[in-house]
């Protein structure tokens, strides 16, 4: 019986009630219309009769009235003649009613029959007329048919409406029970999802119905969540793996040093190696924390106008010796002074990371070029190199944490560089575009609303 408290059922009941009220009003309206019509018709009839009888000569009037009453098998006709003092001369009306207006149009007055005094007076539509000799002619007609009609129609109506109302309530109850079942079903599945079963989905049919659509939307969200969580779990494994490698090495170094070292120098050598391993693990943790921190931060007070051309020259200055060591031509090509709104330190870090990558993956005697271009309503910072570049297949993958291209498996690095660049770029509302190789080409596109003056 829980459905009685459900909203669906309440609505169904309210609608059923409203329907009943509407039908009742309609019935009332029909009744009163018929009533009015019947009364008007009978009024016309008795007015015609009274005109007819009043026009008859005295001797024929008695007979005509008797005939008139004799033909009335249903006993609805009233007629009578009274003298001026109210004494009954002929007819079936017991007495001249009080308050009857003589000569007025049809009116409702209480009349009693001569032959049926016990029944008492009933309200009858009546017309009274003065005859030439001062007597009063009374003609009445009982319009009880309307009451009969009311009873008949009322009964039919009650017989029809009551089952309809009950049916309606039943439908409401059924709908609410069905809705409740579905909610129960959804709840059961959601509980399973909460408990960790991410493969569970909400039931939905392929029909355009709000409940099914809602279920489809939630299922879509669950698909997305599941893949994100799987990806995160993958990242967790990657982190564990990447941390374990240097830590294992450090442990091995320490163990070997402890067992084998015979001089202080040997022990120091072993510890130095161990420290290097631990430092590498720490740098992975630091890089991850920094990444999380940038991903979660918002534009801060550190935002200001950053001269990109100057920044590129600074980065170039910083990396020139390393490029020289690898015989890589590192060049900067900026024609204009271009400013963007941003955090100088973070943007520098992003650009340095791109240049660092470019130099790392470009073979000896190659070239790395930094360019600053004006696009349509945007400023483009481009880093190109003559290295292997990123294949179309890897364009997405390089932005995954710890992703390292197979080609560069043995190049040192943490594998978070591009993630960091991507996070910094996103924080600024810029776009990072990685073009497919051969030859590396990465762009940071800064839309113009960010460019303050040129």
């Amino acid at each position, binding site marked *: 019986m829980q459905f009685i408290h459900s909203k669906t059922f309440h609505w169904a009941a309210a609608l059923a009630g409203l329907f009943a009220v509407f039908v009742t009003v309609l019935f009332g309206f029909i009744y009163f219309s018929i009533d009015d019509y019947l009364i008007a018709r009978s009024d016309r009839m008795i007015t015609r009769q009274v005109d007819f009888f009043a026009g008859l000569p005295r001797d024929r009037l008695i007979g005509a009235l008797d005939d008139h009453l004799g033909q009335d098998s249903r006993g609805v006709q009233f007629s009578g003649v009274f003298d001026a003092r109210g004494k009954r001369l002929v007819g079936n009306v017991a007495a001249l009613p009080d308050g009857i207006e003589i000569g007025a149009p049809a009116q409702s007055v209480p009349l009693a029959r001569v032959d049926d005094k016990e029944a008492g007076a009933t309200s009858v539509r009546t017309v009274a007329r003065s005859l030439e000799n001062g007597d009063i002619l009374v003609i009445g007609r009982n319009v009880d048919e309307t009451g009969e009609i009311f009873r008949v129609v009322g009964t039919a109506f009650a017989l029809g409406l009551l089952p309809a109302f009950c049916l309606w309530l039943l439908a409401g109850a059924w709908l609410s029970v069905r809705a409740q079942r579905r909610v129960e079903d959804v709840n059961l599945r959601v509980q399973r999802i909460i408990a960790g079963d991410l493969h569970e989905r909400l039931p939905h049919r392929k029909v355009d119905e709000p409940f099914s659509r809602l279920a489809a939307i939630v299922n879509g969200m669950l698909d997305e969540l599941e893949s994100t969580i799987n990806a995160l779990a993958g990242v967790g494994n990657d982190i564990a793996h990447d941390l374990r490698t240097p830590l294992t090495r450090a442990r091995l170094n320490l163990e070997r040093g402890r067992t084998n070292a015979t001089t202080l120098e040997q022990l120091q050598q072993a510890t130095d190696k161990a420290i290097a391993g631990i430092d590498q693990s720490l*740098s992975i943790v*630091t890089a991850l924390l920094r990444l999380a921190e940038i991903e979660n931060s918002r534009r*801060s007070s550190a935002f200001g106008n950053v001269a990109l051309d100057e920044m590129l020259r600074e980065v170039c200055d*910083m990396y020139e*010796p390393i490029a020289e060591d690898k015989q890589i031509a590192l060049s900067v090509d900026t024609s204009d002074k271009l400013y963007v709104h941003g955090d100088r330190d973070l943007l520098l*870090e992003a650009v340095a990371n791109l240049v*660092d990558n470019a130099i790392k993956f470009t073979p000896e005697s190659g070239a790395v070029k930094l360019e600053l271009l004006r696009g349509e309503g945007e400023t483009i910072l481009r880093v190109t190199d003559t290295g292997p570049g990123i294949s179309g297949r890897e364009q997405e993958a390089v932005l995954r944490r710890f992703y390292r291209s197979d080609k560069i498996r043995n190049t040192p690095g943490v594998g978070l560089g591009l993630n960091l660049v991507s996070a910094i770029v996103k924080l600024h509302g810029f776009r990072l575009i990685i073009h497919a190789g051969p030859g590396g080409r990465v762009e940071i596109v800064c839309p113009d609303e960010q460019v303050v003056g040129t």
Partner: protein
Amino acid sequence: MTKVLLIEDDGETAGEITAELADRGFEVEWSANGLDGLAKARDLRPDAMIVDRLLPGMDGLTVIESLRKDQVRTPVLVLSALGAVDDRVRGLRMGGDDYLTKPFAIVELIARIEALLRRPTETRETIVRVGQLELDLIGRTAKRGERKIDLLPREFRLLEYMMRRSDQLLTRAMLLEEVWNYKFVPATNLVDVHMGRVRHKVDGPGDAPMIHNVRGAGFILRAVS
């Protein structure tokens, strides 16, 4: 004896720092909470302070702020487990002189404390000298003894920074921050490459070395004794 006040709530970290500083001849006073630390800072007048950011009783930055309000100019190194981008800026704005994020290498901490204690005074000197090495800040020229040294602008900047802090251990992070204005440690060992270039020019063939590499820590520029 140089007095250092350490305000740090973690006993073990504090113990390590105290032992290391004591080894290097510092007198260390330890305080485990902000209020006590503030009182000690006022009473003992230390030469330098190391303040953890998150402290029971009173936040580390509040301690520094109250000291600065009292016109106490003691150099302060702020320690923090928080590495947020804005955090460092706030730490320095509130009156900290340097900022170090946990976990850190102990040599990094010592190097930074020594750097704070021996901050070069602003001089009007236009020539900086360390032993035979001479830097002309106006002419942008360098000499070792009679030998002229050709330096690129960036090499000049690095050498000037090191000469103003001769006999001090300069860590890579410190050099990146101060010479190149890098607030992060890049993947490639940039500092070593730059240092290699400068060392190659300063310590010519047959010269006694002046730039020393301290393993796992950083670099020191020393006059040849």
